[in-house]
Structures are given as structure tokens and as C-alpha cells.
């Protein structure tokens, strides 16, 4: 049957292409893990290539942990607090905008939305830096928390507003009759009803502040306060010769996100595929 053969050929072409793409996506991860166990001599004599590890250097990981652990804690601090405060602020304002009509609502809503379309995060970096300097937030992790909580708000309000509007009004009304205040309604109705979309936006916010380079590069001076991207950038400058330890550091700095993804993978794949971040 020619169609069956056709199907097989087609299927193998598809899978072959996907495998090719995925191979390149996983290649850096593979190299990071393999090289992190090699000794520097082995690496330099035959860099990158697929020879088995001749002697397993576990101490690379210990040294790597020693050099990046501080950065990891800083990054977790910044990204976690930033995401949490974004979530709280966004929930409150999205709830207010989606449920009620009040004087000045459309003005305020467009004021918020306009920042999505107004360019100038690049241009405003200069003045933003000056503003933070005047507030005394240079070399301070709270500046990064603050900026992380500001940057995720607009898309958050936009997405959550649509979701809250779709929640049946009767739920809110019955809760109101039972004497629930606004904050209680947010906690007991909005939060559980839109958990999947909230988790997706939270992960996106978390990733954005996790990978943010420019602001930490400008604001943070002390080595103890650096976040992962900036810290690794500095290590890359210092440690040029010790590839094993460097790669171990890279691998260790991927672990926190690995943990988060293991717990939220289902939400994430579903949420993304459902077109949650279409806008």
C-alpha cells in the first residue's frame, strides 16, 4: 500500500526534523553536564568532543556551588518577591477593573494599557537609572525587586481582566451576600478560578526577572549582591581556565528553574498551548 509507505516517510521526516531541532536545543545542556565532570586537562586536550569522562571530578561541583550559590539566593530573592508582589498588585487591580464600573475607570485602564504600546524601556533606562540613584537604590537588591514587580504588571492586568470578566457574576454576588469583602472575594473566588492562567503569567514574570541582565548589570556593584546572569558573566571573565568548575556552576544555576518546572510543567505546557499568552 503506497499510502502507508507515504505515511511512514512523512512521519519519519517530521520526527527527524523535530529530533534535529531538539538536539540543538539540548546540546548546550548536554555539554554543560558532561564538561562539568571533566578535569581541566582532559577538557583542554580534547574540548567539547564526545570522549567519556576519564576521571570523575565531583569536586568541580563543590567549587561551582561555592561560587554560584550566593548568586542563586539573590536571584531567588529577587524573582520570588518580584513575582509575588506583581501577583498581588495585579490581582487587586484586575479585580477592580473587571468587576466594577467607576468614574475614571476607562482613563485608568488606558493609562495602564498604554505602557504596553509605548516604547521606550530602552530609552528610559538612562532616566530610570537616575531615578533609582536618587532614591538611593543603587547596589540594592530591593531595586531589582521593585522593577520586577513593575514590569510584569501591564500584561498581567490585561490577561487577568479578561479571565475575571468570564467568571460568573453569581459567584461574586453570593459571596457578597455572605459578607465577603473585596480581598476575600479575590482570595476565595478569583484565585482558585483562574489558577492556571495565574500560574502561567507568574512563570513568565519569574523567567523575565530571572533572565534580566541589563538592570542588575547597571545597579549591582557588590559581588555578594549579584544575580545569576550578572554573576555568571563575571565568572566567565575570571575563570577562563577552569572550564569544569564553570560548567558545574552553570548546571547548578539551572537547578532552581528545573525544580519550578517539574512542579508546574503541566500548567505551563497546557496554558501556553491553550493560547493563554496570545496577546
Amino acid at each position, binding site marked *: 500500500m503506497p499510502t502507508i509507505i507515504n505515511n511512514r516517510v512523512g512521519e519519519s521526516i517530521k520526527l527527524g526534523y523535530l529530533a534535529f531541532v531538539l538536539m540543538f536545543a539540548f546540546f548546550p545542556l548536554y555539554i*554543560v553536564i558532561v564538561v562539568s565532570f571533566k578535569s581541566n586537562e582532559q577538557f583542554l586536550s580534547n574540548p567539547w568532543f564526545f570522549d567519556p569522562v576519564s576521571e570523575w571530578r565531583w569536586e568541580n561541583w563543590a567549587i561551582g556551588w561555592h561560587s554560584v550559590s550566593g548568586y542563586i539566593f539573590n536571584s531567588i530573592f529577587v524573582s520570588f518577591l518580584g513575582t509575588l508582589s506583581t501577583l498581588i498588585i495585579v490581582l487587586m487591580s484586575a479585580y477592580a477593573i473587571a468587576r466594577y464600573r*467607576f468614574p475614571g475607570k476607562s482613563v485608568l485602564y488606558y493609562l495602564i494599557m498604554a505602557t504596553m504600546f509605548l516604547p521606550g524601556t530602552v530609552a528610559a533606562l538612562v532616566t530610570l*537609572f537616575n531615578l533609582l540613584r536618587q532614591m538611593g537604590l543603587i547596589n540594592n537588591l530591593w531595586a531589582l525587586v521593585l522593577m520586577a514587580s513593575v514590569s510584569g504588571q501591564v500584561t498581567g492586568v490585561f490577561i487577568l481582566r479578561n479571565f475575571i470578566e468570564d467568571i460568573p457574576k453569581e459567584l461574586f454576588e453570593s459571596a457578597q451576600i455572605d459578607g465577603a469583602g473585596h480581598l476575600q472575594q479575590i482570595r476565595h473566588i478569583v484565585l482558585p478560578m483562574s489558577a492556571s492562567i495565574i500560574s502561567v503569567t507568574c512563570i513568565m514574570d519569574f523567567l523575565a526577572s530571572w533572565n534580566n541582565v541589563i538592570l542588575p548589570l547597571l545597579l549591582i556593584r557588590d559581588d555578594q549582591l549579584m544575580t545569576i546572569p550578572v554573576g555568571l558573566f563575571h565568572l566567565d571573565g575570571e575563570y577562563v581556565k577552569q572550564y569544569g568548575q564553570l560548567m558545574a556552576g552553570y548546571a547548578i544555576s539551572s537547578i532552581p528553574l528545573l525544580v519550578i518546572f517539574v512542579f508546574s510543567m503541566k500548567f505551563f505546557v497546557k496554558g501556553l498551548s491553550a493560547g493563554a499568552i496570545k496577546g
Partner: protein
Amino acid sequence: MKYRQPASDSSPASTSHRSAWLTAFSQRGKLYLALYLLILPTVLSLLIFSYYPKVDIFLMSVYRWQPPTIKEFIGLRNFKEAFSDPIFWQSFELVGILLVANLLKLWPGILAAIALNRVKSDRLRYCIQVCFVVPMIIPGMVFLLMWKNFYDPDFGLINRFLNASGGMEVLNWLDTTMPRVSALLAPVQDGVVGPVFGGVGGLIVLGALIIAVGKIKSHDRSRWGDYTVLMLGALIIPVASVFGLQSSPTEGKALAVLLIVIAWMFACAKRLGRAWIAWPFLLLIGTCVFWHEIWRLPLAFIIAVSWRELIRARLDDYDSAPYFRASSLLLIGLGIFFILFGNIWTAPTQQFSNGTPAWLGNKDLVIPAILFWGFPWVGTVGVLIYLSGLQNIPQDVYEAAKLDGVTPLGMIFRIELPLIMTQIRINLIFMTISTLSTYEMFLILLGPEGGPGGRGMVPGLYLFSSAFSEGRFGYACALGIVLFFIILLLTIVYQKYVKVDK
């Protein structure tokens, strides 16, 4: 209706009318107060950290400013310098190259999403989907530094691979051959293309003009009015240059020209309706291409119009479309051919003979290295967004196509691409704006100076380095405003032109 008046229906009827009104008023006031309090953190934080810095760049761009000591009012001198700063405008050239490259780099992701969507078994598809998400756990910085290591001249993976596979010899051979090809093309380019079209860019502009003119549907009297309006637009800057805009520019003259251009844009919008928005950009690009012989722009416009009139005199709108398409594609293809083989690799780089080209350290190799960056150019988020569009395609569309005898390959163009156009457009918008504004990669890889010979300088990086390594904050603000308006214009165009239906 979401309007709620919590008090009015619950107030007891026995109380007097006046006090009922009062309680209702105070209750509603309470509700509003609560709502304002709920929305306050968002508004306040955006006002302080998003709006204030953006307003502040406008205020500070007129100062010679180096905080915290120097702050001196100098009027529009920063802008004057910005407009005549060769590095700044060269950086847009790189943006143009990157945009074209990114347009091509969209395709591997689209194809991957289509292939993923067509995988038969649900379980396997889910597994692959998860596999696409997993690389996101690697911090972006690790990815950057790994690729930087791949490009290392001595033990980078790319040079190793090229040496092992013989690719280095091919490159070495090309290094001597390509300059010879370009030397062969040079007489044609300088002798024919240059004088007739005003260079290779002229070929492409003429091709684009023919497409745009061919798009004008009407064939009654009013088309001559349209031509006149467009012709006026093509003439503004040539005429202004006759009056000394090019030889002795002053602020007054520049401002006057700007006002005339804006007035013309309004006339264009009134006259041509929705299709007007491409014209100002086309003519602007034409002006840039023909900068030193500006009379060519109206001439090219006349050629395009006469070509249209010639064809439309014999054929109707439907039949003439292929002719416009063919002629413009021929011109643009020819232009691209000349650019690829006559303008890029004109001199041997002599980097490949010893087998260790310094990809990120040589001024001729920086741009190719950046273009190859991230091979095979499949972004996780992009794939998942396309996939969300593909999963909305109902199965019977495929079955109907199968009955009509459409091959699997044909289905890509007949079904899948048209139906995920929304997602492609969204990605296109994101891609354009991020190409114009992001510079993290260039800063990390090449440093604030833009690498060897400043070849890797993008506008954002120039802004960054003039503020934070040269300490010229005021000048950086002026650059930022120029960039701001360019991106704003693009956003408006996209809002108008590219309808995104949610």
C-alpha cells in the same frame, strides 16, 4: 451591566427619601474608595517607574548632563548631533540586516510547530512539547556564554566542526572565489545598474514601488489625483534639497520640511484610505537610498506609474496582477543577487587559511557570526504559540483537503500557513520591535563598543554606551527619543495595518 448600587435596593422604605439618598451616596463612595485603593498600587508604580522616566527623557534631552555634577542647558544641540552621528545611523543598517535575517529565521520555528502538530500519537506529541519547554530552564546567560564558547577560535565547537568536516576548506575556497565573482559583477554594477537605477538599492526601491503602485485598484479618473498626491510626497525632499537642506541644513529648514511631510501624510491618509500607510515609509526609504542624487526618486516613481498605466491599458485588475508581481520580483531578486554576490564578500578576509577564524574578533566575521547565532533558530515560546493556533484547526479541514488531492506538502501552504497567520503576525510584531530595541546579547558578547570596528553596534547599545561608558546622559536621552519615535511609528503602523484578531 456591571454597574452595581449595593445600597439603593436594600435601604428600608421607611426612612425618608433624603437620608436614603445620603446612605446610598456614602455607600457608593465607600465602594469607589475601596476600588481606587485596589487599583492604586498599579497606577502609582506605573506612574513613578514607567511614565516618569519616559517624560524625563524628553526633559533631559536638552541638557548636557552627567549626573550628579554637570547639568547645563544646551537647547537642541543633542538632537543636531544625533541626526548627524554616523555611528547611530550605521547601527540602523545593522538593524536592517538583522530584520531581514530574523524574517528568514521565523520559518524553522513555524515548520517545527507544523511538524509537531502533525505527529500522530498524542502521547509522543505531548512528550515532544515538554521537551521543547525543558531548555527554558537554562538561564539565558548560560546559553549566551555557551554560544560564545562555541565561537572561540582555538577550541570552539564551530571551528572544530568546520575543520573536521572540511567546511573550513570550503570557506577558504569561497574566500578567494567570492571576491573574484564580485570583481566580475563590478563592471555590470558600476556600468549598468549604477547609472540606470542609482545603485543596487535603487533596483529594490523601484521593485517595491511597482508592487505598491500595482496595489492601487481604482482605474477611473481619481487615480490621477492619487498619483499627484504621491508624486508630491516623492518631491518634498528633492525640492527641499534644492533649497539648501542638504548643503546648509538649519533647524528652521528641517522643521519646515517635517511640517510639510506631516501635512502631506494627512493628505495621503484622507485621499488613499487604509492603504496609505506604506507610502511614507516607501518614500522615506527611497530618499535614504537616493540621498546623493535625490532627483531619482520622482523619476523612479514616474517609471513605476507608467509601467502600471502601460499594463492596465490592456488588461483588467485581475489579469494585470501577475505582471506587476513578476516585474517587481524580478527587480528585487536582481537587487538581492547583486547584494549577495557583488557587495558583501568583496575582499578576501584571509581568516580561514589557518583554520582558526576568530568569529567574534574579526570585523568581517562578526555579522555572519551573529546571523548564524542560535542555529537552528527555533524558539520555544514561538513554537508553542504557533502550536496553539494549529490546534484550533478542525480535523475536517484536513480531510476535505485530502479528498481534493492536496499533498501533505501542499497542506502547509494551503491550510496551515493561512490559518496561523494571526500567530505569525504577533510573532512578527514582537520580532521587529525586539530587533530594534534589545541589545543584551551584543553587550555581553561584544562589549559596549560594539565589537571589532564597532560592527556589532545596534541603536540600543549605542544609547547604553554613550550614557554609561561615555557619561553623556543628555545625549543618550536625545538618541532615546529618536529611537522612541521610530518604534512608536512602527507600533502605530502595525496597529493599523496588521489586524490582530484575538
